[in-house]
């Protein structure tokens, strides 16, 4: 597998993982309502990215799965939501939220770096298909990062000093 295919696969896996983590965060922090709703919206972006990556991957000899079939919450999600309701009144839930936001931020950063690598490789090989793909998706990855960063900036002063 050449470097480009390798990066496509890494990105595909990264976007799938980010979608899953965003959904899990949404469920776990259902009582932090903005996190819950926006994380669900942003999971859709990653879902789209992994679909586009699977489609593009075919042109590079890759057989990628694309997004998981059913994004609707399963039994585990119901459990997580129940736990969220039970923990909603505890200050400890705030620390858990910050940890989850950190993890999301790092996962999105990893994806962003891969998009950057892909775009650079596309530039040098003059691969329009890849350039378009990166140009389409990378800005949304950056917006995912800015979102987690903003939330961490806003929430950590209160959540870290009040426990």
């Amino acid at each position, binding site marked *: 597998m050449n470097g480009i295919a390798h990066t496509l696969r890494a990105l595909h896996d990264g976007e799938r993982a980010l979608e899953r983590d965003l959904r899990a965060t949404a469920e776990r922090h259902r009582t932090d309502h*903005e996190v819950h709703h926006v994380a669900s919206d942003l999971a859709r972006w990653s879902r789209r990215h992994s679909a586009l990556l699977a489609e593009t991957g075919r042109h590079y000899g890759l057989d990628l799965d694309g997004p998981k079939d059913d994004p609707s919450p399963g039994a585990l999600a119901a459990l997580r939501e129940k736990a969220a309701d039970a923990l909603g009144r505890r200050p400890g839930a705030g620390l858990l939220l910050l940890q989850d936001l950190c993890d999301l931020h790092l996962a999105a950063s990893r994806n962003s770096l891969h998009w950057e690598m892909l775009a650079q490789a596309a530039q040098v090989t003059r691969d329009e298909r890849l350039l378009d793909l990166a140009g389409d998706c990378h800005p949304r990855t950056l917006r995912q990062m800015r979102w987690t960063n903003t939330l961490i900036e806003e929430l950590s002063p209160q959540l870290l000093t009040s426990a």
Partner: protein
Amino acid sequence: MTEGRDRTKDIWGARTPYDPGTPWPARADAHLAPGVAEDDVERWVPSASLLHSNGDAMDIAVRDGRIVGVRGRTEDRVNRGRLGPKDLYGWQANGSPDRLTRPLVRRDGHLEECDWDTAMDQVAGRSRELLEQRGPGAIGFYTTGQLFLEEYYTLAVLARAGIGTNHLDGNTRLCTATAAEALKESFGCDGQPGSYEDIDHADVIALFGHNMAETQTVLWTRVLDRLAGARPPRLVCVDPRYTLVAQQAEVHLAPRPGTNVALLDALLHEIIRRDLIDQEYIETHTVGFDDLAAAVAPCTPRWAAGICDVTPAAIERAAELLGTAERLTSTVLQGVYQSHQATAAAVQVNNLHLIRGMLGRPGCGLLQMNGQPSAQNTRECGADGDLPGFRNWQNDDHVADLARVWNVRPQDIPHHAPPTHAMQIFRYAEQGSIRMLWITGTNPAVSLPELSRIRSILAQERLFVVVQDLFLTETAQLADVVLPAATWGEKTGVLTNADRTVHLSEKAVEPPGEARADLDIFLDYAARMDFRDKDGGPLISWHDPESAFAAWQRCSAGRPCDYTGLSHDRLRRADSGIQWPCTEEAPDGTARLYTDGITFADPDTCESYGKDLVTGASTEVVEYRSLNPDGKAVLRAAEYLPPHEDTSPEYPVQLITGRTVHHFHTRTKTGRAPELNAAAPDVWAEMSPTEAAHQGLSDGDLVQVGTPRGAVRARLRTTAMRDGVVFVPFHYGYWDTPEGHRPPEGSAGRAANEGTITDWDPVSKQPLFKTCAARVTLVARRATPPVRERTDADADAGSRS
């Protein structure tokens, strides 16, 4: 004169038609208590309405130390003498026998009367304790859109620099946060670009989610008078309900709730596609056009039609009107602000005006409306999620400047993050990091979403709740300390309406019992807390409304909302309200902002660098400078996202809640005005006749409107609106029921927010009251055919706004 006419039914009064470009004729409205003639009035005291954001100027009639009526001020630019039903009758609430007259403190689970020293010592004592043990982040303030400027400013200084907390917001979060945010996104600064006088000049008026006929009756009277005159304006109405505005409109678009962005993107698509744009204006005054054009390129009317359930032809027709108007005035209110993707949608209306060059000229009005009377002051003074004087919390020079004004160190003003918004303040209280919440003049136990959650937060043992209000509201019943406040007519101060018009409202009578002006309560608290500036002097050196106003002037100097040309005395001598900025250079005020291009968006001046319209993530200064180095208006595109809660087989309809003509602000005052209460004494639910039949229901049935979070029980009214939607007016709570602050045990309630979803716009943080899924089920068939007298507004009673 209004006497003898029942203005709860005759809502807009007699027509005074006028032609475009001519002044709106005066019409003197008045209402005096039964048996009081004009000759009996001892004094007329100047004021303006505190029951909606129109800012109607009026005189308060006083006799024997009591308010006995009101009359409109014919010389005023806002209302030219007219008054709406709430203005005419609402003043009676001041004299209501259940006004709070003494402070209350909770002892053994019950609220008991006490003296001011006891109550204030408790408030100050708990504040000091929390500051010592847990720091300033343990104390939060939640205020209103109904105090006076002087009071907001004092509260902002004592909360931000005195306590040092970032947790100060107003209930303007529920009514007007999106207006402010949308203006900041596009123009770098809050402040209404247009003027109400634009109604006099416009040839097309577009109302986006704004049932002006009910929410701003006097402004709607102005529109009706234009419609009755020569060359009337043509109206475009966006509202899922067939409101009176819709009935007067040339084009009525009734989109599915939660789809405003798709609709607006399609309107922009059409206007750009047909080249109905002002290329020169775009080049001179904006950045971001290419991105906007690219973003709306796929948003055809056909595409939007599939999402909004509006015909492509209707969208094209609306785009034609908006795109060919010579003087376009647009207004936006809760149908946009309290709906899904609120800021993104409101910003698209700004974009419409920018790409058409419809700003800064008579008739080219852009009115991002307010819901509450002094919401503008909350925003200017920084008693909501902003810093005073529209300063930018991300700009160190702005913070340093504010520190200079207050004579404190910059690090004494929290600016590590944007000021905490109301919904997050409640979340912190729920989690236990906020331990004291001081609520002034607002009633979250009825007005916030998902009421059982809010009640349980306020009732927590660990949370010390202070409520400052006129009555023992639902919220006050859950408080630990209740402070009786004076109100409109009982204190002096300034209030500024949605089109930046500043009015002085003078004290006419004494407040009841020991009730005190909010300003005096704040000053008392500041004195007990002994807040100091950096040189050891008192942080708050003013002592009455006039000196508080002077302090605010120093804070506003040089900022967009510059009040330096105003004073209580100047306002007292003026015939009419004056629009800010009012300075030495503009001594008579400023009718329109941006007459000479965009002026406040400069990176060094702007109030905000903007936010991502989907995620709400803040833009950093470096990014803003590179995007907009010359401080032009920013055209920000927005992609449509599906609503967060959609219909399902279990919850097959969409619930929208709204404001109606006879009531305001959970009926704290309007429910105590006999005529207004009688006109709409209890909650109801509305559906289209088709939808009702589809659900097996008919007019007059007692129904339950349930969501996954709660339920309301109400009589059904069938009325013209889109299918698949149920509307419930938002005003009703429990203070006039046996339970006092909650629904009957184990039963459905009457407050629309029992079931609304806890979700807010990530950009403006305004809660959504217009997008959640519900089911409507039969409780009991109507016994007899419904008998009720219909009012003019009844055909559309209630609204999106």
